[in-house]
């Protein structure tokens, strides 16, 4: 067995001798990266600050969304519990009966479910995940000083902020926020008389999401341009870390699909505000017939899912990139099948546009269409499977450092396996007849998207925290966070498969009316209890995160994990511009671990005379 040298590369020497001089200093005191308090911490154009803004805003939303889920889980697990103690927080959302017993009103039950879904999908797992890490890592990992347009980048965050403010405001409306489900299907979402949340709440919901899309588009445009144009010398596409590849493809998917969602939303707004009939026809509601004829609610579903399915990959691809990077680094071993990983990211990105109607098998669309969507949906499982096998093989014969980020990366793969496989049931239309809109779907997407994406995000936060804040998070708390979360998440979502196979529909306020659906009290109680356990774990995480920003152990080495990617060649607390002097020049792919007897070889290290950069 060859002995491995624990090398420490003298980064500064490499940069000085090999680096690429873009005459950064000469601009430094000019306009470009001027710094005052406001422009440093608030209206910052530094991609690293913007990343942190995304992260912290996303975390705030995650807690709001998670808090709502606890309340509606209480309703499902313990419907008879007295909730009057929640009045100080939730006010009129809690009904108090004549005996003083408080319960959650159905209007607000649905409001919470809806806001939970909306903010987790869009604000947390899109903005909080892709927004954070694309911003933080793209320039640092490709050796760029910032995004192509730092100003648009800042604008992107502030549009997200505006979207957040509007959504937050809607929570305080007398009639409550929108309550018709995160997919907002009309006519329920189009007609104020259909439910309380479909009035002003829905207007704010739509405005908020339109601003959100603007934010995504501005961000995505920037990520794409930056990756294409600002790669440092030697950083060819085949030398990009998988993180950057995944952010790049994610941004392209977003750019192509989000505008379709906006189109769908605009038509919905027109139906709501101007009385057009894009989605409405033959409706009799609240005692009178409406004038609308000729519209089709199915049209909305097509427009929504044309984004909606790519959106799930917009969420998961960045997590996949992060996990690939974290796994390779902590297993001290090249990622297995780098090119296959890249090709599957591209394949998934491409195929994700051809499967949307698998959400609509029983929507009333022509059953003939389903043939194609079954085909493409099951095809997309192939690149997904390839990725899973590659991760597993990356662990094979590795030298695995079971650090907190590595644990979360392993957890990610487990959840992606468990949840991805149930997609094969749902993608096959005959089975979906039975499973659609049951708890089986809830189990599927929470495991594959919700939990897996969170695990990817946690892996990323624990891994890059030292780079972001120059300090470490508490490891023991991190491990407790991991164990509580993995156990709680499986205990919450696994049993939902059984509910689904038993036929229990999702989005039910209560199961009492049905003989067949009301047999699962114990199961529902277990789920609710573990939801609280999981939430507790996140409180520990939040404490660890914020405490460590200010008081965590200081990072003393520039490259604590001995990683190969370029961000670790920048100073521990990089200023705006990332590298104070020359930019690193790239000579190799990012996964040269344990190569030719050296523990790791960063990308800026030139090849040995007899060495070739093949992978």
């Amino acid at each position, binding site marked *: 067995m060859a002995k491995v040298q624990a090398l420490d590369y003298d980064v500064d020497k490499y940069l000085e001798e090999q680096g690429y001089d873009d005459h950064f200093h000469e601009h430094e005191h000019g306009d470009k990266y001027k710094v005052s308090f406001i422009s440093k911490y608030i209206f910052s154009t530094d991609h690293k600050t913007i990343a942190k803004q995304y992260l912290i805003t996303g975390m705030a939303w995650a807690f709001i969304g998670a808090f709502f889920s606890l309340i509606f889980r209480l309703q499902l697990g313990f419907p008879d519990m007295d909730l009057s103690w929640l009045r100080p927080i939730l006010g009129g959302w809690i009904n108090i009966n004549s005996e003083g017993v408080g319960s959650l009103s159905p209007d607000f039950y649905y409001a919470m479910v809806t806001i939970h879904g909306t903010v987790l999908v869009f604000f947390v797992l899109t903005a909080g995940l892709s927004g954070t890490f694309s911003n933080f890592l793209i320039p640092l990992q490709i050796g760029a000083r910032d995004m192509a347009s730092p100003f648009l980048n800042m604008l992107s965050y502030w549009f997200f902020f505006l979207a957040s403010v509007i959504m937050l405001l809607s929570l305080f409306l007398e009639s409550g926020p929108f309550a018709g489900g995160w997919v907002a299907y009309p006519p329920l979402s189009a007609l104020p008389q*259909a439910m309380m949340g479909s009035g002003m709440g829905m207007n704010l919901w739509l405005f908020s999401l339109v601003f959100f899309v603007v934010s995504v588009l501005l961000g995505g445009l920037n990520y794409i341009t930056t990756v294409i144009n600002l790669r440092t010398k030697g950083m060819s596409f085949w030398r990009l870390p998988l993180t950057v590849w995944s952010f790049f493809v994610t941004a392209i998917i977003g750019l192509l699909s989000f505008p379709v969602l906006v189109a769908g939303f605009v038509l919905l707004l027109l139906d709501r505000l101007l009385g057009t009939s894009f989605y409405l026809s033959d409706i009799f509601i609240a005692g009178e017939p409406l004038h609308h004829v000729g519209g089709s609610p199915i049209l909305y579903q097509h427009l929504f899912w044309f984004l909606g399915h790519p959106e799930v990959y917009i969420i998961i691809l960045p997590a996949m990139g992060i996990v690939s990077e974290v796994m390779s680094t902590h297993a001290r071993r090249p990622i*297995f099948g780098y090119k296959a990983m890249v090709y599957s990211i591209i394949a998934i990105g491409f195929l994700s546009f051809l499967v949307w109607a698998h959400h609509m098998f029983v929507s*009333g669309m022509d059953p003939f269409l389903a043939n194609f969507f079954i085909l493409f949906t*099951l095809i997309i499982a192939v690149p997904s499977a*390839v990725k899973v096998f590659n991760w597993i093989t990356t662990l094979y014969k590795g030298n695995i450092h*079971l650090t907190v980020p590595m644990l979360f990366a392993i957890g990610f793969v487990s959840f992606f396996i468990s949840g991805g496989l149930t997609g094969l049931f749902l993608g096959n239309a005959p089975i979906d007849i039975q499973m659609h809109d049951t708890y089986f779907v809830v189990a599927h997407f929470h495991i594959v998207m919700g939990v897996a994406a969170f695990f990817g995000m946690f892996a990323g936060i624990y891994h890059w925290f030292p780079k972001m804040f120059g300090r470490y998070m508490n*490891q*023991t708390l991190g491990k407790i966070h991991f164990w509580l979360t993995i156990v709680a998440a499986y205990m919450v979502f696994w049993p939902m498969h*059984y509910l689904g196979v038993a036929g229990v529909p999702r989005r039910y306020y209560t199961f009492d009316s049905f003989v067949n659906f009301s047999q699962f009290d114990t199961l529902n109680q277990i789920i609710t209890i573990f939801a609280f356990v999981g939430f507790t774990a996140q409180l520990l995480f939040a404490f660890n995160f914020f405490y460590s920003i200010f008081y965590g152990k200081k990072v003393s080495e520039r490259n604590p994990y001995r990683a190969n990617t370029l961000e670790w060649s920048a100073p521990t607390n990089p200023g705006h511009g990332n590298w104070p002097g020359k930019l690193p020049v790239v000579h190799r792919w990012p996964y040269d671990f344990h190569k030719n007897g050296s523990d790791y070889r960063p990308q800026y290290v030139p090849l040995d005379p007899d060495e070739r950069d093949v992978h």
Partner: protein
Amino acid sequence: MTALVATIAYVLLLGIIILISFINDVHIDMRRDDPDFRVKQYRRSAVGLLVFAALFFALTFGSAYWYKDFMLGYGPHKAASEHGPEIDSLFNITLFFTGLVFVLATAALFWFAFKYRHVRGRVASQFAHSTKLEMIWTVVPALVMTILVVKGIVSWNKITADVSEDEEYLEIDITGQQFLWNIRYPGKDGKLGAKDFRLIEPGINELGQDWTDERNHDDFFAEELILPKGRKIKLRIYAKDVLHSVFLPHFRVKMDAVPGMPTYAVFTPTMTTEEYRRRLAKTKTYQRPADPDDPESDPLWKVFDFELACAELCGIGHSSMRRVVKVVEPEEFDKWFSQQKSYYMENIRFTEHDPYKDKLLPQEISQRKSDFETRFNRALSAEEEAKRSIELRHVEFKTGSAELSPLSRYELDFVVEALKAHPNIRLEIAGHTDNVGNEEMNQKLSLARAKAVYDYLVSKGIAPDRLKTVGYGATQPKASNASESGRSANRRIELKIIK
């Protein structure tokens, strides 16, 4: 108070966890230069992962077994429709392949994480690419997908096929609204009548049925979805306000109800409710009392019913859109079906909502005609003179007037026909009233009404000398004038046959 104590205990618990973590991290930091310590740390996590994987598998299989009696398609639950087993078998094939991958991939993941954890001196493999391996795990899943796709597509097209022209099937209209299902059967003609949302009137015409469409005239509503075993059913699915979805879990049927766009679902029930209950009764799970708090309550299998649920979020009452579904033997179904009363005839006919309120429908004409002819012939052949009289049951006048109601002409036309068929008989037309108003007025009114009948018959070509009119006023009541129904019976025209 308890809430306060619980909160304090919770915060305390968090505090303790945090405190311990900090102490532990200081400990870790002190030994950061000891490589054996790190190895030990990783070992602990690795063992944790292994234990987790073991528990995960145990719980997965244990809980699946534990709940199997509730899972549709497993335990006592067999699909109750003809296409159901096809879906279940596709489910099982998918479960087989995915189960295999799940176990192997999860086991490999956790095992490798354990086995290849960092220990001193371990050198990681350089193995980063293998065309052969990567081909294998691209091609094998692709082959499995091919099997699933082909089977899936074949089943799908079979299951979603519409009924064909020459097939026998029962059509039922299911219309969702906030928050209930309307269930409409086609009546004896086997056809559902047309409808239009603009005709909807709550409480009167819930579905907006177009009453000028005769197919509507025998349609009826039911509170439960009653289905005959073994016959093909076509559900015609509509929504009045927002999206709903017809979900019949035991039959593996689901289809959205879309305003403005009718959809359908075709299936054939294969098990009656009773048969299904008997299957359930064999398992312990369903022998438990239905109400867990009351050991005396009926066992679960006995209170079991097939159910129709809504599976598309439709507002705050979404979870209350339930209908019982009852599958019965076809004979029982036919009997039930023939006993149902048409909604139109019972609730709409001759009301202001009836477009035909001034007209008789062909079947009503023939019914009345045969009723009239029977009575007429009986009277004609009666021995006693007192029995040679018949009442015109459908000749009516406006209150206080001698103007014939429009519908009176049908029965008068029968009279014309009868007189023409029997040229040698003559009639005495007798008017009667109730006792409301003064006697003289009643007398005059009854005569005037008899005269109106006389005029009508003459206008139809009956010779005046064959007819004679009398007004009896209120002098010959045939029922008590104390009630409205009695008074109504007393206001009448009678014909006496004179040979």
